[in-house]
């Protein structure tokens, strides 16, 4: 056996500091190069490529000489980039929206009548909701459209999806479950533009004819299609949540002489509530952000339906506004589309954080027994 000293204070300490110095300068160099690359790229300079080459060289040498440290540094950079990207999205979408945010102020949410509470005008009125020639941009019709379509989609996807998940997870024989579950997951992959195409070519006319509607395209149809689209996702996620409820809980109820249905309703479903509500919130998030189906199906008119509850009328959603107008928008008009992006972004972010909170809270509440 070769007797390697476990450590030899003098030599090892000496070497360590050498290595440290080397790694330190590499890290500094790499970080500097990367930062310069980023700054130059943001400043829109093709010179960004020069520090980039520097960074690659430093990384290459680091990989060769100090693989473990380099790898760790690179993985750290990758991790930090998630924050950077979210930050960039936030900044750039906000900055582009800023001119219109400043111009419109609260009137971004203005109605054609002023909003007053006890005689105090909270939101002054707008002449018309969306006028590109006068540069008046109120998002109210779009927000309403998004709200209504999301509501309809959720009303379809949530109950039906949860019921189907119950069937898959708790009732269906294993063979059925094992074949249907992957099938449902695959169905979740149908691209939204395909639904859009179907909606535009077939469903639009079908509803128009059979419901004797006044217009082709309606919030109702968009909600219906988005609901259908979100169904497989809700089914699949809710099913996962249900199956993760420990069998011991079910056994406990069944062994008391309860029917499986009673067990499902009063034990399994409540225990899986966090996962199931996450599934629903996920579905809602998808519905809020769904673009293509709405863009293709809706006739685009940026006014509130008249009367308001007329879901068979055409309105605009936040997403379809962007997709239908980006093409001929410039200047303030384009900035106005970014305000729709801001509202979307913030809404979905809030939803996602809320979903996470709910999940954590429920997990904490139920966690003990699992």
């Amino acid at each position: 056996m070769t007797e390697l000293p476990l450590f030899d204070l003098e030599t090892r300490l000496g070497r360590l500091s050498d290595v440290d110095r080397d790694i330190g300068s590499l890290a500094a160099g790499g970080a500097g190069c990367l930062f310069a690359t980023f700054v130059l790229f943001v400043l829109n300079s093709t010179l960004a490529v020069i520090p980039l080459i520097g960074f690659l060289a430093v990384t290459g040498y680091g990989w060769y000489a100090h693989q473990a440290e380099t790898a760790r540094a690179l993985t750290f950079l990758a991790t930090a980039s998630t924050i950077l990207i979210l930050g960039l999205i936030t900044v750039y979408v906000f900055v582009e929206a800023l001119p219109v945010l400043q111009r419109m102020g609260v009137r971004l949410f203005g109605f054609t009548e002023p909003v007053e509470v006890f005689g105090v005008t909270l939101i002054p009125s707008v002449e018309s909701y969306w006028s590109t020639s006068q540069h008046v941009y109120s998002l109210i019709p779009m927000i309403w459209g998004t709200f209504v379509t999301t509501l309809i989609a959720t009303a379809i996807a949530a109950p039906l999806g949860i019921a189907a998940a119950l069937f898959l997870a708790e009732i269906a024989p294993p063979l059925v479950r094992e074949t249907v579950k992957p099938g449902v997951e695959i169905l979740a992959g149908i691209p939204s533009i395909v639904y859009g195409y179907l909606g535009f070519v077939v469903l639009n006319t079908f509803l128009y004819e059979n419901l004797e509607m006044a217009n082709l395209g309606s919030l109702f149809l968009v909600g219906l299609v988005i609901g259908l689209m979100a169904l497989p996702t809700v089914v699949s996620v809710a099913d996962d949540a249900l199956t993760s409820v420990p069998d011991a809980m079910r056994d406990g109820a069944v062994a008391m002489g309860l029917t499986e249905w009673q067990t499902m309703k009063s034990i399994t479903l409540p225990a899986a509530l966090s996962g199931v509500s996450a599934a629903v919130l996920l579905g809602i998030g998808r519905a809020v952000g769904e673009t293509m189906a709405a863009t293709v199906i809706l006739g685009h008119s940026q006014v509130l339906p008249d009367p308001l509850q007329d879901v068979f009328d055409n309105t605009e959603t936040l997403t379809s506004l962007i997709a239908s107008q980006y093409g001929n928008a410039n200047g303030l008009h384009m900035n106005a589309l970014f305000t729709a992006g801001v509202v979307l972004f913030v809404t979905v972010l809030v939803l996602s954080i809320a979903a996470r909170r709910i999940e954590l809270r429920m997990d904490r509440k139920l966690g003990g027994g699992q």
Partner: protein
Amino acid sequence: MTDTSSLGANAPTDTTVAENADRPQTTDRHEDTPDSWTDYAFEGEPKLSVDGLDVHYGSDQALDDISIEIPEQSVTALIGPSGCGKSTFLRCLNRMNDRIRAAEVDGTVTFEGQDIYQDGLDLVELRKRVGMVFQAPNPFPKSIRDNIAYGPRKHGTVQTDLLAKLTGRDDSDQEDEIVERSLRQAAIWEEVNDRLDDNALGLSGGQQQRLCIARCLAVDPEVILMDEPASALDPIATAKIEDLIEELAEEYTVVIVTHNMQQAARISDQTAVFLTGGRLVEYGETDQVFENPKSQRVEDYITGKFG
């Protein structure tokens, strides 16, 4: 219950071992003792009786031709090395095995004379009358009160929902009574009576296990099956559960699986010993089985030669 505390398998007692050592050492005495223990006679009708029970999981045989009769109002312990089929046997008695896909059950099990594997059997009713407590405590993620009242409510014994209240049929008092009685029976009332509305998951393991027993009692079963109810618990909690089981036997028929031979010796009236391969090799009064096992293998098992 006889005093069996000196019968701990590890404690050197009388000369049993020496005596046994003198007996002829047939390597497999199982073949010639298959029915000796069915002679085990007790007064009255058996509460549960099992005849020629075979269970397979797919191609694995978990129980091999088990026949046994279990008397009323007593504690029957099932012991045996890991994997010998104790849990499987227990689950056959209230048909919880139906929930395991791979399990295939042959033979007859009768409960008060009725074959529980016949067509048209009301599973829900059976499980109401043959309750079960599991190895790991599994309270529902609800309040303590709701855990206990859950069964009676679902079975319609008490009606406390909004509709019942509206129609003036509120059984809240009766429910409270059931909750208190069950918790008292399970020796946990004192510890939880001031926090009945707290979540049951906040209780300690031993408390949770007693809660599960209370939950089972609230449904008012006739038989209580327990699968290693104390294996997840510390010694103090275990002692409480053991006391409780002895008390329960005054009113209920208790069947308990345990891997702890001292425990079996302490609390049971009769003991059945299973050995690997799913065979029942000995069944009789607990004293008898521990002090003077008929089979060499059982003796080896009890004295810790294997398992």
